[in-house]
């Protein structure tokens, strides 16, 4: 945290001039720092946010690079069935060496996940792929819809604003989870076959669509409020005076002012969507079997909560750590991007 002395060292520091720059500028070579450079400097000082960012990068690496490596090293896949990994009608416990179908010994790091002997560790790793794919893609789609709707509503006002605002309120008033379940149950089966040439697992597109439908309204409201205020600013007046079209004003003059907000809200939304995906999968309207997601792993683990409680712990921890990391990163970014912040 910046000291009081540092803050007062540059009493007239305006937006765009780094406060810490004052310390380096003792020789008189004051260098103006850009908005993003300042934000980056502030972000670097927030150790929790940096740690969260590192955790997220690690999770992404583990999910998309580590998982195939783990399959190669362990010699079995996340959906492979192994009867030997079932002991006394219970999934094998953590760090079990069991025989595979060929009679070779293979390691189950976190034990088996169910009564067909699938590997919990690999399923948590592959579940991370699904959770991240769903959460990030749904966030991007949700933000895209939200920003477009919010910008149009805020910029044009009048009937457009009324329409968008009422639509937002209508969607917000829906019993979200029930509606998402209904949507997934009705159209989900048809959408499950879309995998975009194998890029996504079956079911991911359904989840993305269902979650996106309920992710756009908060960004829309936030963006609308900001645009309402920005459209009255002098630079917008100036752009109009020089003949800038509405589209150009929105794209070149308003959107750059919204980037910070969008990034911050985006990271927070990813966390929310990870939880939403888990909730939907937990309720059985997520990914179809046999593919794993953290939600359906957690859902299956409930059956063993009295006998193998750790089966709830692994996907639960994964959800907790990832959602927490995205939340903390979002908070850190918000502090870093906020021009009134005084790190």
């Amino acid at each position, binding site marked *: 945290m910046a000291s009081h002395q540092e803050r007062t060292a540059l009493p007239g520091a305006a937006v765009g001039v780094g406060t810490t720059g004052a310390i380096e500028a003792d020789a008189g070579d004051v260098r103006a720092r850009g908005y993003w450079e300042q934000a980056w400097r502030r972000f670097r000082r927030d150790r929790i946010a940096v740690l969260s960012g590192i955790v997220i990068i690690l999770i992404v690496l583990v999910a998309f690079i580590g998982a195939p490596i783990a399959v190669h090293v362990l010699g079995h896949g996340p*959906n492979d069935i192994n009867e030997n990994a079932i002991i*006394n*009608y219970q999934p094998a416990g953590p760090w079990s060496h069991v025989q595979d179908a060929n009679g070779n010994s293979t390691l189950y790091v976190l034990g088996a996940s169910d*009564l067909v002997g699938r590997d919990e560790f690999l399923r948590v790793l592959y579940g991370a792929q699904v959770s991240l794919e769903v959460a990030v893609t749904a966030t991007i789609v949700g933000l895209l819809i939200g920003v477009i709707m919010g910008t149009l509503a805020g910029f044009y006002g009048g009937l457009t604003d009324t329409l968008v605002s009422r639509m937002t309120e209508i969607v917000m008033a829906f019993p979200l989870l029930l509606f998402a379940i209904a949507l997934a149950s009705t159209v989900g089966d048809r959408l499950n076959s879309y995998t975009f040439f194998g890029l996504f697992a079956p079911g991911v597109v359904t989840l993305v669509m269902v979650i996106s439908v309920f992710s756009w309204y908060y960004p829309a409201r936030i963006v609308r409020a900001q645009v309402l205020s920005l459209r009255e600013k002098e630079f917008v007046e100036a752009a109009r005076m020089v003949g800038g079209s509405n589209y150009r004003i929105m794209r070149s003059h308003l959107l750059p002012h919204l980037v910070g907000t969008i990034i911050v809200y985006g990271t927070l939304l990813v966390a929310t969507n990870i939880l939403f995906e888990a909730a939907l999968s937990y309720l059985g309207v997520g990914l179809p079997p046999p593919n794993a997601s953290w939600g359906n792993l957690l*859902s299956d683990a409930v*059956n063993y909560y009295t006998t193998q409680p750790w089966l709830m712990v692994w996907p639960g921890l994964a959800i907790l750590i990832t959602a*927490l990391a995205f*939340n903390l990163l979002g908070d850190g970014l918000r502090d870093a991007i906020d021009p009134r912040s005084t790190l």
Partner: protein
Amino acid sequence: MRRPGLWLAVGALTAGIVLLGAAGCGSSSGGNNSVASQAPGGQSVVPHVNGGTLKAAFHGDIDFIDPALAYYQSSWQVEYATCVKLLNYPDKSGDAGKVLTPEAASALPTVSSDGKTYTFTVPAGKYKFNTGEPVTAATFQHAIERDLSPKQASYFGATFLTDIQGATGYKGLPAHVSGITVSGDKLTFKLTQPDAGFLAKIATPFACAIPKNTPVNSKGVQSIAGAGPYYIANWVQHRSLLLKRNPNYNGPRPHYLNEIDFTQMTLDKNQGTLELKNGQLDYCPDCVAFSQSFQLNQEFGPDGSSTKQTGNQRFFVTPAAIISYFALNTARPAFKNPLVREAVNWAIDRPAIEKPYGYGYGTPGDKILPPALPGSQFEKSVYPITSPTAQDISKAKALMKQSGVKTPMTVIEYTTAGDPSVAEGDAVLTANLAKIGIKVKQKAFTRAVQFQAEGVKGVAMDIANEGWIEDYPDPYDFMNILLSGDNIPKTGGNNFSYFNVPKYNQQMDHANTLSGNARYQAYGSIATDMMKNNPPWAPWLYTNNLDFFGPNVGCTVDTPSYIMDLATMCLRK
């Protein structure tokens, strides 16, 4: 607000861990020291209280309390305790519980020499409803005519009673069916053709005595008097069910308890198991969580640690006349060729499919008739009931090759959603059939929707993951109902393999005219021939009933037709 998510998450995690610990630490109260003699399917009578309330719950709810409509296993269990029928099964387990004995009728009926006329004598007032109304011959006439009334929409009427003269084309109450007549205490049924299974049909809960003023109602009545040992005192749909001892019951059936109080109708199995273990509940049918059955057996089974200590066996595994099978849709290109269906039967790993259902769920098997059903003894096993060997897989592959079908081929399996055991069993099936070039894609539905969807003629389904519980202990109920080509309606069918082979249709119709051992022998040999040469199914499991009781429960009898006998249950002293 800064980082509310962090504290919420940490708080929730802590609460979760605490609850988990609390759940795991639930102790099992020991019960008393009296030693009960134990028998398969239950305990014989132990020193018990005459009276008291049995604290009970259901996991899977009941569908109706109206006997014309009720068709859940749990509903029939309730009706067995609350109904009086012309003939009934004794409150006994094993083979003794399969013998039809007169109940409201004074004796078994007289049957005409052509086998088409059955005459019962029903002494008026031998049984009375809890309201005081006597049960008479006319009571049964009304009950069965109500079943046959088209507006009542009873599955029983439409399926089992069509052989009664005048049943087809019957317009409904208050008119009478020409083939059902009452004269004093005589009740006569005239059939259009001989049916050796008629007595078994008339002994199902559909033919339960109901008051003569019970209206026709396709949605089912919400309250109904009972003439059995107990009656339904209160039913709040999906909420609760209260049975009370029938004050007017003078029959021979046991009735020790004052009340049986089902306070929950959809209790989670894990929760139910814990509550039973701790004695918060006395009984919950179908409530044993698959993940806990092994431990329950270790602790409370016949040789369990707690059983040895207290002498009170609380966990029972009883074979039931229930079959689990994959119906292979013979009307679809994938399974039109019998060789492909044979290949499936050679390739599936029955024990591995069973494993996800937990300890004691059933016995892997390949026969159409489960061993608990008469006739099964005459059906021969054809396919591997252990995990298939390399030779079995080779044989399956050879059959596929011989069939000439193009592989790999994709088939659609209709299955039940929301049950991890089913999903895992399906995963094993998928892996098994992949070895012979069949790729299985699952379409999961809620159970009721699945059943309806599969029964629509022409449905784009290749495999149905199905099960069948006996309506009554007779092979007709499995073979003619599930595999006769005469039983393929446009909607609402049960013949999910759409199996229609005239040779077998005729053989099954003929078998139904036989009685006694000849009947069972005939059905057994038809089933063997079918499975060997033209298998409509890939049967994989004969299911058991799993029963777990609270420490205070005694006098338990698992009957062949109605699972645990509520009328027999008592509370230990």
